[in-house]
């Protein structure tokens, strides 16, 4: 392939200060392959970012339109002088082979116009690959890759990147477990010849893994995060091979089954393409197009061929005790203890079916009736798997729980399971070895709860008296039956609530009393006055009932109550205050003069009744009482 593309020349400014050049990569592309067209502007002192005017390409020229592919800026400082080098990149593709020329690009910088060189290049034919180039071992096993961005490349990449399915057999038996694995094969040299860089590869898009709906599947090796390649030479051709996926499958039906292709999209970098933009590049030069995670490259979807399987039915008739396992298996038996006590110890008999095949589907064997052994419960099963020498080894464990019912030597006879052996292509009966138990006499009964009733010991089940009671146990309590209750009943709750409420009530009452007392302490006069008023009213009411019995005593009492009240009002001693003093005191407290006169008259009337007994009538006495009440009420408002 001749190298025809060349940089025809370099455009210089009139002052020979700015250098504008154009070039393409790769220099010998093939049709459909992305080509990068770069315009470099190298000026010592540019103030503004240059503007590039791309040349027009004729629609029938065989070249596609330019698409921006990023801008980079380099700053160099040489001898104290700074230079900025701009690189504007555009991508395009050629649709046909032949000679092509890109006219000069125009660059405007700092008010000056520069032109780049013309770029001439040759697009060669897509290299034709055929299955004949494939190693014979891979014939009919390789599917061509898909390259949606450049379909012309698909033929060229045939046999250089593919997924190889590996299956144990394409004619498995129904129920037979087989291994299916997928490996990615890459021919690095072949990719390089197609301008793909095998060193710059990353996953992209959605991986299509076969669904395997007509199989029971057990994934052994999931899709890896990173591909780990190893070199493999097939018929003197070097391949980088990476495992992708491995699964153990068991067909669920007989007949023809097709497994769909495995598809893996991969993004390859292009050889000779401009480097990936660095994070240190100025993103402000090309804000819209800057994408530090973008890779200049092409997406190639590697795929496998569809697999066709012809699933065979198992030979008929199957033995009645066939457990369903197909493969090559071994059966072993063990007990967790061989020295036990009768009617006490629980023995675990473990049967393990292990081998290459679908042991997980095996149904539990039926345990023969054993003299002196009681089966307590249905066996418990568990399965496990491991990959040994690239083979899936599965095992199924059956745990039987037994209990010896008599002392002496008890023999567990061989237990058998029938499987289909894929090596010999026939049903085979596997047998365990015989196990002998040494059973010591126990303290418990001989009759035990068996299988169905084992989980719920019945209180009425007949038991023999224990021959040797456990003496280490403390003796029972023989006193009177003392009943108790850990729960708090309703009656008790009520009682507790009552105690809490009563104590709270006491506290609340105390609080009220305390508050009242505090208020009284804060204003003792007002309290005293209020108390005297209430007392006076009470006493007047009591006087009302005794009116008419003895007018002298009645008047005396009115005078006494009135004096006491007024003394309290005037903060004096009732016995020490004369009528004159009371009247003066009231006058000082702005009691109206006429009220004071009425009070004086009332007191004098009462005094005269005391010292010069006059018999008042009932109505007169009530009138005196009413006057006294009025005086009290009117004076109670004054300060």
């Amino acid at each position, binding site marked *: 392939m001749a190298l025809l593309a060349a940089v025809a020349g370099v455009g210089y400014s009139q002052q020979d200060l700015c250098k504008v050049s154009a070039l393409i990569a790769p220099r010998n592309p093939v049709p459909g392959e992305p080509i990068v067209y770069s315009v470099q502007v190298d000026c010592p002192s540019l103030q503004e970012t240059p503007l590039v005017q791309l040349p027009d390409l004729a629609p029938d020229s065989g070249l596609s339109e330019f698409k921006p592919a990023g801008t980079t800026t380099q700053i160099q400082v040489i001898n104290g002088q700074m230079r900025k080098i701009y690189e504007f990149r555009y991508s395009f593709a050629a649709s046909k082979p032949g000679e092509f020329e890109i006219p000069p690009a125009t660059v405007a910088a700092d008010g000056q116009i520069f032109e780049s060189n013309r770029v001439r290049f040759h697009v060669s034919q897509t290299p034709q690959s055929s299955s004949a180039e494939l190693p014979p071992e891979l014939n009919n096993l390789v599917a061509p890759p898909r390259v949606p961005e450049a379909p012309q490349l698909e033929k060229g990449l045939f046999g250089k990147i593919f997924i190889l399915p590996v299956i144990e057999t394409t004619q498995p038996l129904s129920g037979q477990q087989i291994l299916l694995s997928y490996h990615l094969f890459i021919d690095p040299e072949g990719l390089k010849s197609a301008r793909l860089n095998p060193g710059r590869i990353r996953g992209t898009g959605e991986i299509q893994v076969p669904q395997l709906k007509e199989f029971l599947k057990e994934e052994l090796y999931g899709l890896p995060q990173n591909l780990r390649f190893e070199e493999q030479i097939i018929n003197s051709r070097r391949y980088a091979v990476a495992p992708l996926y491995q699964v153990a499958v068991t067909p669920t039906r007989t007949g023809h089954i097709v497994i769909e292709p495995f598809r893996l999209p991969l993004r390859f970098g292009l050889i000779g393409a401009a480097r990936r933009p660095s994070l240190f590049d100025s993103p402000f030069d090309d804000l819209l197009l800057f994408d530090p995670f973008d890779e200049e490259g092409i997406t190639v979807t590697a795929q496998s061929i569809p697999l066709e399987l012809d699933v065979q039915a198992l030979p008929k008739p199957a033995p009645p005790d066939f457990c369903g396992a197909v493969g090559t298996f071994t059966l072993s038996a063990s007990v967790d203890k061989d020295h036990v006590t009768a009617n*006490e110890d*629980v023995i675990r008999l473990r049967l393990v079916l292990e081998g290459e095949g679908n042991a997980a589907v095996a149904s539990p064997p039926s345990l023969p009736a054993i003299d002196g052994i009681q089966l*307590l*419960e249905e066996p*418990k099963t*568990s399965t496990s798997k491991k990959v040994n020498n690239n083979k899936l080894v599965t095992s199924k464990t059956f*745990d039987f*729980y037994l*209990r010896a019912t008599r002392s002496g030597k008890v023999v567990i006879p061989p237990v058998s399971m029938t499987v289909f052996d894929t090596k010999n292509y026939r049903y085979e009966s596997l047998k365990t070895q015989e196990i002998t138990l040494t059973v010591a006499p*126990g*303290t*418990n*009964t001989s009759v035990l709860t068996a299988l169905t009733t*084992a*989980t*719920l*010991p019945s*209180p*009425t089940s*007949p*038991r023999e*008296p*224990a021959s040797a*009671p*456990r003496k*280490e*146990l*403390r*003796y*029972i*309590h*023989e*006193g*009177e*039956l*003392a*009943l*108790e*209750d*850990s*729960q*708090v*009943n309703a*009656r*008790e709750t009520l*009682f*507790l609530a*009552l*105690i*809490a409420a*009563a*104590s*709270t009530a*006491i*506290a609340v*009452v*105390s*609080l009220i*009393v*305390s508050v009242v007392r505090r208020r009284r302490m804060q204003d003792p006069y007002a309290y005293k006055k209020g108390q005297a008023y209430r007392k006076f009213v009470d006493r007047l009411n009591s006087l009302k009932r005794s009116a008419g019995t003895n007018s002298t005593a009645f008047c005396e009492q009115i005078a006494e109550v009135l004096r006491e009240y007024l003394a309290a009002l005037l903060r004096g001693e009732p016995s020490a205050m004369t009528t004159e003093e009371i009247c003066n005191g009231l006058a000082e407290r702005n009691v109206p003069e006429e009220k004071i006169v009425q009070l004086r008259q009332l007191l004098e009337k009462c005094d005269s009744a005391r010292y010069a007994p006059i018999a008042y009538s009932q109505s007169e006495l009530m009138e005196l009482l009413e006057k006294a009440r009025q005086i009290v009420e009117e004076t109670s408002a004054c300060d």
Partner: protein
Amino acid sequence: MRLIVHLIVFMVIVSLNGSLVNAAPQHTSSAHDWEMMDEVFQKANEAYRQKDFHTAERLYKDLLTSNVVSADLYYNLGTTCAQLGKTGEAVLYLEKALKLRPHSEDVLANLNIVSPPGNVEEPFILIQPFYYIMRLLTFRQWLWACVICYGAVMILLSIRLLNERSERAVRVLLRSSLVLFIVISCFAAWSYYHTHQLRYVVVISPAASVYSGPSQTFTRLLTPSEGQKLRLLPYDDPEWRRVVLPTGQYGFIRNDVVREI
């Protein structure tokens, strides 16, 4: 003040009355019934003495069906089951007895003998003294102590309110009883959580399994030994119980192989 004294006297009388009421059998409809139950209990004890453990077990269980709740009954039944080799039931009834009498030495001793390893709770070493104190009393006793302490606080507060020039001793007593009330309340709350919120089951079958889901088709996580105590979690299924394994995992066990304590 006189009123408070009267109220205190009233409360003491009522308390004594309540204590007496609570000391009397509550589950029996009459004294006659209780006498009959005591007679059965003594017969069961006699059967145990004669080493007729089956008869003793039957009689004790007859009492249980009559809704008799007694620490002695649970202890005797648990011990009898232990004699019969029924480890699961022995642990179940001894745990029930322990719930009623958290510090019964006999119960603890027999439980230590029959329990499989891992059943005994060992709280964090710094919590152990507090745990020991909490287990000194039942929740019911803690509740009583709490209410009585509350009453004491209220009464001392009343005295303090009514007598502002109260003695220093009253003030100290009030503060002390307040602190005591708070501490007792905490223990009562802890005891409530321990006895009413934490629920346990005991495996009563020698061949039980704990699965990862409520079906035997799930992975088997554990084969618990008979008598193993497992913490119970809420789960609404009559056939399966959700339990916490000693490893901290959750699992499911068939309802008919366990009994709740």
